[in-house]
């Protein structure tokens, strides 16, 4: 299995304050991201997501442990040539025009056909008409797009995006999502951190949840959510009031709307038992829905669990 990112027992601590208090930003992080996948890196503020990203880019050195990116050390300039990066809430040189900024980035990347690359990426991010505009006149969404453009300019194998949807309106988020899906179709690996969980559910093949520097959950999104199965909703119509009263005892919650009744039961067997009895009483099945937790619910539960420790 080819890995785009691999960390082994990665730790990072900082010392702050007059009495040099030790703060542990990362605690034995073991993470693997496969080539070609979209990996969502989740966690509350201060969980250590950005610290991890900085280590993966060679911007910060780990206190202990090892990080490999594209099977090489991120401190090597050769490795970074193969990575595209968008920082959180990016600020760019506002004295430059979009074209000048991308030309500067192209030179730093050592690109040969700079003009072709710039024209092409400006088209991808929809900023062709703004190429001569200074970045100081760009809106938040345009800045995010120029940030994506500089990250993708050198056709990287791995794209690391730190909060790419931050501060964007729904249209802007949709545009960035489309760019990410396009990258996945080209076989690129995308590693992104975000707070917007609906985007993760739409985009990611796998996710990792980082809390207080520790990786709490990691795996395929569907499997994580299936594990967090919550209850079954059985909706039946045509039941008489006395039958409803009888079945209510089997359900932990009941919701009545017009002639339909929804019973919430915890176990699958209980649900089938209730359905059989309801049908015997003349009830007709409307829906039978096993309900799993959303990623947001799972995330909030994990954060709450960790904060209690």
């Amino acid at each position, binding site marked *: 299995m080819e890995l785009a990112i691999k960390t082994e027992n990665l730790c990072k601590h900082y010392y702050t304050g007059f009495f040099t208090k030790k703060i542990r930003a990362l605690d034995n992080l073991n993470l693997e991201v496969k080539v070609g996948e979209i990996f969502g890196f989740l966690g509350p503020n201060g969980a250590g997501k950005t610290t991890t990203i900085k280590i993966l880019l060679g911007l910060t050195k780990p206190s202990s442990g090892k990080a490999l990116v594209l099977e090489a050390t991120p401190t090597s*300039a050769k490795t970074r040539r193969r990575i595209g990066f968008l920082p959180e809430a990016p600020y760019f040189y506002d004295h430059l025009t979009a074209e000048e900024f991308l030309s500067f980035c192209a030179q730093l990347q050592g690109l040969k056909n700079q003009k072709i690359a710039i024209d092409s990426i400006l088209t991808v991010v929809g900023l062709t008409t703004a190429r001569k505009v200074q970045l100081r006149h760009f809106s938040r969404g345009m800045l995010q797009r120029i940030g994506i453009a500089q990250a993708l300019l050198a056709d990287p194998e791995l794209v690391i995006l730190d909060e790419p949807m931050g501060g964007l309106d729904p249209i802007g988020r949709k545009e960035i999502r489309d760019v990410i899906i396009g990258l996945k179709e080209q076989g690129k690996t995308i590693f992104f951190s975000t707070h917007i969980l609906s985007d993760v559910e739409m985009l990611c093949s796998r996710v990792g949840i980082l809390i207080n520097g520790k990786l709490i959950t990691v795996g395929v999104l569907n499997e994580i959510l299936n594990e967090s199965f919550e209850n079954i909703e059985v909706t039946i119509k045509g039941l008489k009031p006395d039958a409803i009263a009888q079945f209510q005892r089997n359900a932990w919650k009941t919701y009545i709307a017009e002639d339909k009744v929804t019973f919430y039961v915890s176990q699958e067997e209980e649900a089938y038992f209730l359905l059989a009895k309801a049908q015997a009483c003349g009830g007709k099945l409307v829906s039978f829905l096993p309900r799993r937790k959303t990623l947001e619910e799972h995330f909030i539960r994990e954060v709450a669990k960790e904060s209690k420790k």
Partner: protein
Amino acid sequence: MKILAIVENTFKEAIRDRILLVLLVIGFIAIGSAKIIKPLALGEEAKIIKDLGLATITLTAVLTTILIGGKLVYKEVEKRTIYIMLAKPVTRYQFIIGKYLGLVLVIFFTITIMTGGYYLMLSLTNTEATLSLLLPILMTFFEVLIIIALALFFSSIATPITASLITFVVYFISNFTRDLKALAQISPSVVVKALANFFYYLLPNLANFNIRNLVIHNAIINPATILLSILYALIYSALVLCFAALIFQRKDF
């Protein structure tokens, strides 16, 4: 190629910065004021006009270095543009060298423009404009090479205001290092002696670069002294840059 890109970006950023424009305007006004004070010079017009112009060029170049150089690295860290740069295949040494050469280019540009204005003023006031006046300007350029390296060094460890302040203090003391040596010789205190000697050897001797009076008074200048000063500027700047790069290399962002 990568260093050139950083040089070009640093230069563009500086010339689009209002501080440079303001300093250039003030510099031109100071040079132009020679025309006003000419009637007050009582027979020393040529010397005063020449000296005022040369001093203005030096002051403008030094202030530009301190004010722009002081925020050169810190601003990149504070605004997080450094993430964009260092996440690309750029080494930290390339970054430091690129920033340094970018500011050198800005100072070269500033001094060239100011020199143009200076010679224009000499011609407007019918003052003899000899080529020998270029020599102190050249020495100012080499003096500023050292200050740029110091500003860059302080900018990589302190905030812009602190870095500018420290650079200014170091520049000021570095013009009087001979006095430090004298202090070390006459002071009875061992501590003062040690401190004075320490700073004498640590700080650059910038007084060597001030040959304005010698040129204005047509004194003979030994070319070897000039060449030695230039060599000194290059070596001192290179050493300070190495320290800045070493600090920068170990830094976490």
